[in-house]
């Protein structure tokens, strides 16, 4: 058990702080929603109802979609795009999908390679892109969820001001949908872009996200 915890501590740690943060967000969001209701003599709602409301749904999913987009994009962009000196980049002559030998697929697979890496054909092609496929699918589902819940939350606000509600297609073209979307995208793009650059010149001893402390600034694709 102790060994299991140690060997999986990275995912356990992040899953735990995710649940804590989500719980706290839901409590703060519930309080904020009810404060807003009080300001215009509306009804306060219970915690359970808030958890199932579109208000909570959109607040959560608009962030989820941007995070999964960020990782899906980063996973894909780093196949071709390079950054001299960055541990986030491949070596400068390695851009592209690389050879089957380098990627250990088909007849170049090791004995302990995953089955679909050895299988060839469609299965190997699918497995070769499975990280992007799954992260991209989660991104699209989260974004769809943001659109569905965002429309409800926005329409509540519009009806409160005696305006008509928007249908789904109208909402997809609304400033509210794109403002929610882009405010999250820009922060993710800034974070990964700055990480790629900062990791050229700065170090975190012991982290695989960093180069070794003594590694030269212009050495690319080295992780510590």
């Amino acid at each position, binding site marked *: 058990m102790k060994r299991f915890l140690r060997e999986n501590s990275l995912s356990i740690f992040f899953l735990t702080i995710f649940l804590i943060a989500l719980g706290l967000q839901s409590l703060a969001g519930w309080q904020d929603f009810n404060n807003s209701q009080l300001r215009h003599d509306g009804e306060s709602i219970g915690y359970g109802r808030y958890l*199932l*409301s*579109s*208000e909570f749904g959109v607040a959560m999913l608009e962030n989820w979609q941007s995070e999964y987009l960020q990782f899906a994009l980063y996973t894909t962009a780093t196949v071709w795009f390079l950054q001299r000196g960055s541990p986030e980049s491949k070596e400068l002559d390695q851009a592209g999908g690389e050879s089957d030998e380098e990627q250990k697929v088909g007849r170049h697979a090791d004995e302990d390679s995953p089955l679909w890496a050895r299988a060839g054909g469609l299965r190997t092609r699918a497995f070769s892109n499975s990280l992007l496929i799954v992260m991209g699918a*989660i991104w699209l589902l989260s974004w769809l*969820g943001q659109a569905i819940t965002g429309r*409800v939350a926005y329409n509540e606000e519009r009806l409160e001001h005696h305006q008509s509600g928007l249908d789904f297609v109208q909402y997809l073209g609304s400033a509210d949908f794109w403002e929610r979307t882009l405010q999250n995208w820009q922060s993710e793009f800034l974070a990964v872009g700055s990480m790629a650059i900062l990791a050229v010149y700065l170090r975190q001893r012991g982290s695989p996200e960093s180069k070794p402390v003594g590694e030269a600034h212009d050495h690319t694709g080295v992780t510590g």
Partner: protein
Amino acid sequence: MAAFPYRAVLVAATLALVLGGCGATDSDGAAGAAERLYAAYADQDGETACAQFSDDTREQLEKDERKPCPEAVLALDLSGTRVTGEQAYVTEAKVEIDGGDSVFVEETGEHGWLVTAAGCRPVPDQEAPYDCEVES
């Protein structure tokens, strides 16, 4: 970085489905409040009609018409009696009446659903509020 991708797909899909269905609320009360207002207006029952308004709307009506609400409400131009449709989002709803009016209704604490605007008609600009006979 993607520790539990398959699990996360399931969670995201489930949440999208669950939360997507959470827009509509129990809005029988919203349609009921609008219907009671229009029925009372048709019956010239000012007291019952006024009981459907939120406090702010009732006060605004009395201020605008300079009459007590039960009198002032009967001077409004409300059209229709039957509910033909409604949109409900969390604690707000818009109810359509067969005469072409829209009614805006809000869920309040102890008093249930109350009318915040009635006798409303859309204006050409979609971003502008409806033009209402009475509103808070």
